[in-house]
């Protein structure tokens, strides 16, 4: 009888250890991704969509960019981000500043803060929806991202 009880205890301990190690493998970590817009002309409004290709990411924060013309936090779905359910995001902003104050060249328009899960490297999709001049003319701009250093949670 004692042998049976001892065997059960050992079995439970083994199961608990296995579950613990599985959780450790699935640990989450923070990351930040800078989004850059490259435009030869001054930009008055921009919009992009960002998502994870392999579904191992949640967006947990959105930070404003470096341009004084876009001084506030850009528009995004705050509810989804606050609830931690945003596995993709649409970010946009516009500025009513004078044309000579609008940014051009390579500008960091926002920084996204993410929580990554799993061991695989994240794969992102980034699409520029629109970028226009102060008079609403579409700009042939490009968009790119740069990942910052990651930290374990």
């Amino acid at each position: 009888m004692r042998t049976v009880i001892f065997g059960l205890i050992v079995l439970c301990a083994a199961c608990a250890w296995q579950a613990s190690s599985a959780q450790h493998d699935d640990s989450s970590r923070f990351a930040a991704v800078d989004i850059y817009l490259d435009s030869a002309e001054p930009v008055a409004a921009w919009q992009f969509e960002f998502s994870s290709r392999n579904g191992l990411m949640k967006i947990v924060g959105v930070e404003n960019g470096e341009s004084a013309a876009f001084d506030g936090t850009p528009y995004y779905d705050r509810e989804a981000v606050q609830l931690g359910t945003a596995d993709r995001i649409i970010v946009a902003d516009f500025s009513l500043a004078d044309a000579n104050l609008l940014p051009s060249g390579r500008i960091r328009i926002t920084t996204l803060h993410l929580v990554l899960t799993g061991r695989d490297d994240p794969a992102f999709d980034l699409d520029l929806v629109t970028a226009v001049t102060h008079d609403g003319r579409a700009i042939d701009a490009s968009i790119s991202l740069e990942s910052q250093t990651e930290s374990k949670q």
Partner: protein
Amino acid sequence: MGPEKERSEDLPQPLIEALKSADRPVAMITARVDREVSEMARSHFSARRQPTRVPRPAWAAMAATVLIAVIVVQLQPPDQSTLYTDVDRSGRIDIADVLALARAQGPGERSQAELDAFASRIVSLKRAGEAS
């Protein structure tokens, strides 16, 4: 001769005749006649319309309902869907439409709150999910 005979002979003749003429068998009303008379009466009175009179409390309730309906309609916010349109006619509703709306208006015509609401609608994941 019986006593009754003697008594009737005491009455004057005209009275006797009058009594005899009044002494007729009672007219029998059959069930059929009764039914027909009832139906005639019913149809006669149903043809006459009773004037419809709404009691005063019902009028008050109707007036109150109309008043509440008017107040509710007045308090309804304006339809925002007309605001969220393809302002720049690019074939797509995006942040450029918010910029176009903001630039097209005169000062104070569209509030910052309305522009923010339009932009928030554009970036809403729920809306984007519905559209796709």
